[in-house]
């Protein structure tokens, strides 16, 4: 079966039979426990598994402020958000926003930029604060400030009379230690997204992504890839990672998170995350150069690439099946592509040719004013976001003990998340709102089966 046919069949609704016909990927695991986001594919060599376990340790590691005796795990800061990858990706899953202004952002951060583009067409970092507000500083270095969030509720009445309250976040910067941000600052709050299945998404070919864009146009949506700067290969490439698909490879995404979130340098980001105005930051010692060695970076990469994804559950439940059919019928699957096949992936052949069910097209879509952050990033506009994968979404509450969705966690459940869709997704959202309550519940039940 050709890749294009897989995609078109998926979008045309022949999904269930299609899925049944596909051999199960070794990257899908029937596991609904609280460890379901943390399973390493067992069908790998002993060496690959050993490297993945080393990567798992690093991902779980709380990092140490230098100077330190434990040089292998030292390098936190001078400016940082959290001590550990797991802070924002608990159990490899999703972070959550503060509930009120008294609470700090513990698994969430705020990206910053000014209008304009950097030399490669990406967002233009703030000259003083960089491209992310680091709320923490090592001893002797002031954290950059903090962001407080509160919410305003607005009740939405659906056509059948059911009401849903949606909350709009309101952000305030506080205790800014390096001067005002300025009136033209662009900012984008982000909750830490899940980190499983990323190897599979990396193995989806450019050709497939372009075919998905074309197939989407036939379905009435206008998704497009984000062409970004691939810093390792020194050339433009299709972006896959980050909430705006602004990073080309998983290795770069990992290295970006280490420097941006924890202030840990690597060969891809050899300089500490201090701007010229941050004197104490610049004078603060590094642990070594780089703080995250290439071997460590590759171990984390190996771990994330080998993480399995939870298989669907209760697929034969009549309500789930009804919800799945409705999900396709109202147009959700136009962007949340149910079935993809990975391409050739020489870096890790185990990822090649896998039939996967990520429910994403890896494309950018206009999601409307309601979700807009108004912070462009390469070709991603201020209203655009990459379609987030939905696999494993039904286990979120069990594993991460909350049900906050969307890029900033404003949605408190899946229904709210759907009702926040706008822009290109507005017709699908309106069709969802126009369903009977029973059919809406079926769609949610389907999502909970993922």
């Amino acid at each position, binding site marked *: 079966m050709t890749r294009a046919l897989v995609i078109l069949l998926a979008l045309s609704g022949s999904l269930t039979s299609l899925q049944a016909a596909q051999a199960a990927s070794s990257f899908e695991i029937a*596991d609904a*426990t*609280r*460890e379901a986001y943390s399973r390493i594919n*067992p069908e790998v060599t002993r060496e690959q598994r050993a490297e993945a*376990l080393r990567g*798992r*340790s690093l991902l*779980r590691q*709380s*990092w*140490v402020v230098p100077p*330190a*005796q*434990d040089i292998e795990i030292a390098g*936190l800061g001078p400016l940082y958000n959290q*001590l*550990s990858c*797991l*802070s924002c990706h*608990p159990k490899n899953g999703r972070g959550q926003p503060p509930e009120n202004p*008294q*609470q*700090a952002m*513990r*698994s969430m951060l705020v990206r910053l930029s000014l209008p304009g583009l950097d030399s490669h067409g990406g967002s233009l970092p703030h000259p003083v604060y960089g491209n992310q507000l680091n709320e*923490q500083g090592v*001893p002797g270095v002031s954290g950059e*400030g*903090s962001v*407080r969030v509160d919410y*305003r509720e*607005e009740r*939405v*009445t*659906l056509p059948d009379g059911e009401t849903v309250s*949606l909350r*709009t*976040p*309101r*952000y*305030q*910067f*506080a*205790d*800014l230690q390096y001067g*005002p*941000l*300025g*009136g033209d*600052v662009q*900012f984008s709050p982000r909750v830490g997204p899940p980190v499983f299945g990323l190897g599979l998404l990396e193995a989806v070919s450019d050709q497939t992504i372009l075919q998905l864009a074309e197939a989407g146009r036939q379905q009435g949506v206008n998704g497009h890839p984000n062409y970004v700067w691939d810093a390792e290969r020194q050339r433009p490439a299709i972006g896959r990672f980050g909430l705006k698909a602004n990073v080309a490879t998983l290795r770069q995404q990992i290295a970006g998170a280490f420097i941006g979130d924890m202030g840990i340098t690597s060969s891809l980001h050899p300089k500490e995350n201090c701007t010229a105005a941050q004197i104490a930051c610049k004078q603060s010692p590094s642990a070594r150069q780089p703080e995250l060695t290439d071997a460590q970076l590759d171990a984390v990469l190996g771990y994330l690439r080998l993480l399995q994804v939870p298989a669907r559950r209760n697929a034969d439940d009549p309500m789930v099946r009804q919800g799945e059919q409705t999900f396709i019928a109202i147009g959700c699957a136009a962007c949340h592509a149910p079935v993809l096949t990975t391409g050739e992936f020489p870096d890790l052949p185990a990822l090649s040719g896998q039939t996967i069910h990520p429910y994403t097209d890896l494309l950018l879509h206009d999601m*409307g*004013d*309601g979700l*807009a*952050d108004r912070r462009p990033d390469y070709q991603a506009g201020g209203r655009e976001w990459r379609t987030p994968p939905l696999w494993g979404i039904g286990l979120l509450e069990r594993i991460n003990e909350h049900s906050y969705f969307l890029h900033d966690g404003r949605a408190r459940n899946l229904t709210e998340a759907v009702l*926040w869709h706008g822009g290109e997704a507005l017709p699908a959202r*309106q069709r969802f*709102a126009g369903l009977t309550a029973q059919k809406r519940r079926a769609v949610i039940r389907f999502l909970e089966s993922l």
Partner: protein
Amino acid sequence: MKNLRLLFGLIISLSAFPAVAKEKLTVLTAYPEDVVSRFETAFERAYPDIDLVVLWRMPHDALPYLSQPKQGGVDVYWSASLGNFMVLKNQGAWQKLGISRQGLADQLGALPLADPDGFFCATETAGYGFAVNPAYLQSHGLPTPKTWQDLADARYQGHLALPVPSRVGFAPMMIDSVLQQYGWDQGWAILAGIAANARLAESGATFITDSIGSGERGIGPAIDFFTASAIANGAPLQFVYPEPAAYSPAHIAITAASQHTDAARQFVAFVLSDAGQKRLFHPDIRKLPVRAAVYADKPDGYYNPFAAADLHPVVYDPVHALPRLALNNALFDRLFTDHHPRLQTLWQKLRTHEAAGKDERLAKIRQLLTAVPVDAKTAENPAMQQIFADRSTDAKAEAKARMLEQSWRQEIDSRYAEAEHLLKQLEP
């Protein structure tokens, strides 16, 4: 459809507003993120006027950090490192906790839960025992072990994973607990039998859980919370506490240099409160509270060390163990790690002959394989203990330690050679 209109965009006040001044409290710990994040969140909710900043260091790195002037700006040290708390107490690094201990026991059998001078106290404890894969045991027809002595039984040969104490952080006290429970000579003899049955593991406790969970081995001596957490998260494992169980407590102290004593006391009191102690029940933490009353609300099947101690009083005292842990580690490596394949071959032959029948030489061979080159009295000698405790930081101590180890090697090699010779005599 006016109610279906999408809502408004982001709202921001770009004129940064001054936040209500919070008192900054710095806590140094070696707890993993799963523990830290839950206490951070809960404490923030209880005390929104305190800004909790967490720093992380392993115990060996925390000691010099807390010994520097102003103690690195740390207000509270919270870690499972009794040695650090005692050394730093002697340096005058702590101030009195000054909190109510109502509802908190000072002892769990022989295990002290509070510094007698009030400078630090236990906040939780963890038990040593056996991570067990019940399906593995069933498929191999093996009974569930109940004691350390059980693990030395020949039927468990090839079915254990044993952490090496010089490489795995929790293991030194676990190994010493066997020596305290059974006595020096018998303890090492039991450990020799266990080592003969085991694959030696030089990675951490998650490796033990991985190894047992995957069915690579069926039993792994370990500290409880890794396995208990894995079980709570769905792993088909079991954790067996030997009777009596031994425990490793974690402690908390307020630094002498702290300028935030009230906030520090609030944090300590929160960790020890009902609410704080019940946090330890979380599936991702699974530590054992030191406030006995909270066990009334424990999850089903949760181990209660206070109830267990009523039946089998705790005999293990980690304070007694601390000075000799480095010596133990060196002995373990010279006895077992250095000779492991040879050791296993010798034990396999010995057991084969023992199963086949009696021969007076077998007792001698067993004695040769279980003897330890340092007697109990020497092991208690503070000068001897200090040589090994100081070897990583003192070149002279390292030289002395190497000389002693060389003599042990010769003695062990001689014994093994004699055992090999006797076993050869027994061959038909």
